[in-house]
């Protein structure tokens, strides 16, 4: 198992390097001069050239790449080319807890809805309850998260004044400020996620519930609840864990629209702002972190398989 983990970690690092390198060169191939745009209103072409030399952007691309890579290997992700040149590590490390909070709470909300919904839907197959759950799941899948987010703001913040409309409060300011700022965006993000997981659980459970060993257990008089929760559900989890793993990684990097709606500066928003501004170091650094999240999420999913199903072993 240790050898397997080491191999996977090594592979993960290679993937991260490949993604970061691809992004590095692609960014510089994308049209748009960041400095000219930044200083358009100033209207001083010399000011842009001074900055270009200062930031090393006048050097050949391969030279820029070499310098960047050597700094990254020393743990330095560089500095933003905008404004006060804040370090990328600082920008990303400030954004990460917000994204983690949003993704984590979305995850909890989604699973809290998806697991019971999926189980009920599978157990009461073709009943009106199953149809209702299916309908709600498709509704959740069909609603764009940003639209749902705006709706939630209008209802719960602007009209009812129950919750704040925007912003983020760290956990250090207290549980309720943190939770009250995150509950609406988490519902917006988690709704589609819960629909996908619920449908996955339903489908997986239906397959397991029709297995021979379940029929034997049922005919032996095992209580239905024990049958479902102890014997069927764990075996139905393998494909569900795969979906959850991928969805969580997507949540970490992809909730940019909801982050914009609720004015939360998470990783997604850092990435998008960086791309729009052509802030090369920020995009490169953020992509490195996002790719790390993806590959290590996948690794975690693979390890979880062995926990859920002891028959699965890696050498």
């Amino acid at each position: 198992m240790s050898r397997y983990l080491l191999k996977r970690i090594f592979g993960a690092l290679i993937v991260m390097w490949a993604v970061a390198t691809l992004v590095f060169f692609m960014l510089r191939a994308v049209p748009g001069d960041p400095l000219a745009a930044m200083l358009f209103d100033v209207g001083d072409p010399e000011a842009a050239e001074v900055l270009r030399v200062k930031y090393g952007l006048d050097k050949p691309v391969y030279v820029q790449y070499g310098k960047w890579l050597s700094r990254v290997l020393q743990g330095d992700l560089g500095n933003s080319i905008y404004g006060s040149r804040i370090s990328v590590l600082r920008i990303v490390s400030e954004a990460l807890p917000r994204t983690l909070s949003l993704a984590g709470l979305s995850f909890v909300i989604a699973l809290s809805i998806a697991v019971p919904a999926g189980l009920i839907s599978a157990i009461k197959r073709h009943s009106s309850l199953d149809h209702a759950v299916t309908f709600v799941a498709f509704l959740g899948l069909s609603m764009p998260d940003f639209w749902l987010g705006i709706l939630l703001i209008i209802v719960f913040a602007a009209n009812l004044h129950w919750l704040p409309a925007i912003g983020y409060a760290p956990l250090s300011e207290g549980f309720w400020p943190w939770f009250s700022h995150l509950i609406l965006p988490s519902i917006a993000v988690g709704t589609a996620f819960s629909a996908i997981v619920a449908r996955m659980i339903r489908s997986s459970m239906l397959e397991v519930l029709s297995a021979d060993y379940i029929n034997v257990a049922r005919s032996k008089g095992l209580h239905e609840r024990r049958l479902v929760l102890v014997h069927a559900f764990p075996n139905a989890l393998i494909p569900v864990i795969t979906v959850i793993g991928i969805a969580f990684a997507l949540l970490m990097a992809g909730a940019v629209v909801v982050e914009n709606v609720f004015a939360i500066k998470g990783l997604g928003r850092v990435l998008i702002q960086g791309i729009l501004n052509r802030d090369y170091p920020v995009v490169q650094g953020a992509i490195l972190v996002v790719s790390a999240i993806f590959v290590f999420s996948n690794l975690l999913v693979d390890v979880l398989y062995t926990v859920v199903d002891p028959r699965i072993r890696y050498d």
Partner: protein
Amino acid sequence: MKKKTDPLLEQEKTRIKEEWDSAYDYDPRDPLFSLSQSEMSGPTLSRRSVLRLMAAAGTLTVAHLLPGVGMGSAQAAAKKGGVLNAGWAGVGELRTLDPAQINQVLLFQVASNVLSGLMHIDAQLVARGDLALDWTVSADGTEYVFALREGVTFHNGDKFTADDVVFTYNRSKDPQKSIHSRVVSNIIDASAVDDYHVKLKLEKPQASLLGKTLERSAGRAMTIVSSGALESMGLQQYGLTPVGTGPFRVTAHTMGQQLVLEKFDNYYDPDRPKLDKITIQPIIDAEPLAGAMEAGDIQIIGGNPVAPELVDRFESNPDLVVDIVPAPGFQSVWINPWRDPFKVSNFDKPIDELKKDKGFKVRLALAKAIDRDRYIHQAQFGRGVPAYGTINPAMGFFFDDSLGDRSEQRFDLEEARQLLADAGYPNGEGFPKLEIKCTPSARREVQVIKNILKTNLNVDIGVRTMDFPVLIDDFRTMNWDLLRIGSGGDYDPDDGVVDWMQTSSKFNGRDRDKAKMPFGTFSDKEVDALVDAQRFETDPDKRKAMVQKANLLTSDKVACAFIFHPVDVLVHHKSVNFPKESRIPGLMDMDRVTIS
């Protein structure tokens, strides 16, 4: 029936004319602009002197003289204290508050509350010393000695002295350290006479020195920074949490999330600021901004202009106050003179000659087919002024409100269709499919233009959105058919005609292939000459005539299809008292703001 004249209105008109005439009543050869040394010296500059210097610098507009502007109402004893929550519209983060790096007004709106300058012009148009207590000027207008306020401290406790002024100057003049080095290029030396006196030596007399270069808001280059804080904090941290001598200090700044300003107890004016704390959150999208305002998360909006689709909504909310004033600027659709079917390689002809040109007929047809009233109604929700040139209503004296009736670009559907037919495209048949480029935020407005042209001329225009850096690249290299872009913050004719309409203008296809394109977007010798001449014309009537003639020429010859002049909207909760003297265009000075 004879119309009754309002005596108060007539009185105001007389006052405006008298102040205007007085402002321009100077000898341009006089280094002190026909003011005496005592009038130019401190501790305050009278309104009359300020208006004179603004006129000499070319920055005076009738807007500055209008009733209610500059006539700050005396504040009743307002309740002090409280926390004001502000949302900064249309921006994802406040990237820097270091004045040497600030390139956006929305950033300076914040910095102006934290940092000070030597001078500050208030809304009463009296230039008062900010950190300068008094000053004298030499007879030749090239040497200024400022007596600085004593006992002023920076937010970190460091004493403010003349060395800080010298430090700021030396930092600002270095292009490696500041993007505003050109602003101080006329100052050739700054030296500390003693701890509380500083001398500035100029290369030549400069009318805009006191009112602009050294002004705490407009200056930027001479906004006083703390050398001690820069050294101890480093550039990065200083840009996030600058240390100044202003009424508020930055106590926290999580970039992209929230900025916190707190009252500086040792501010040199014990009566200010009134508020205890201000929180500022950048809110990039319109709907969340509206939601936050309605939910009470924020009580005032600063930053970029409020999205026009929100104004009606805010106005209908009884808890909110919406204040609308003319904004300086123009917005337009540019038509590439180097591309068919509107190619024009020579604008240096009389208009009647130009009209024989097939490419010009198409340009004029497009411009004449745009129903500006309909555009403003649909795209700007009824808020805006139809534009026919760069000279906007905020320029007051220079604005020609009859241009809409005289310009060749005035809306005339029959004539537009005839022109297009004469150019070989009757009813739009055979007209090539073209593209109009714009930023994503302008997509909706451009869609309105596209629909108007389709309805009125039966021409198909595709809309292509692109990020601002790419749009700017294409704009400068002339890589477009049609392009939607404009200008803001234009208070003086120079901001319009000099920056956009001359052959050598900085926005006129600067990075084009000059071998293939001798000029960028537009070139006319007569316009070039008029614009050059008006910069040095001191007789206001003559200058006005030149500016208006140049404006008419650019309009008639379709330098671009001018669309509208925008408005400036301030929105706040009714519990917020935002006094008139703080309503300085482009700024959000909150030192006098209170909460009921």
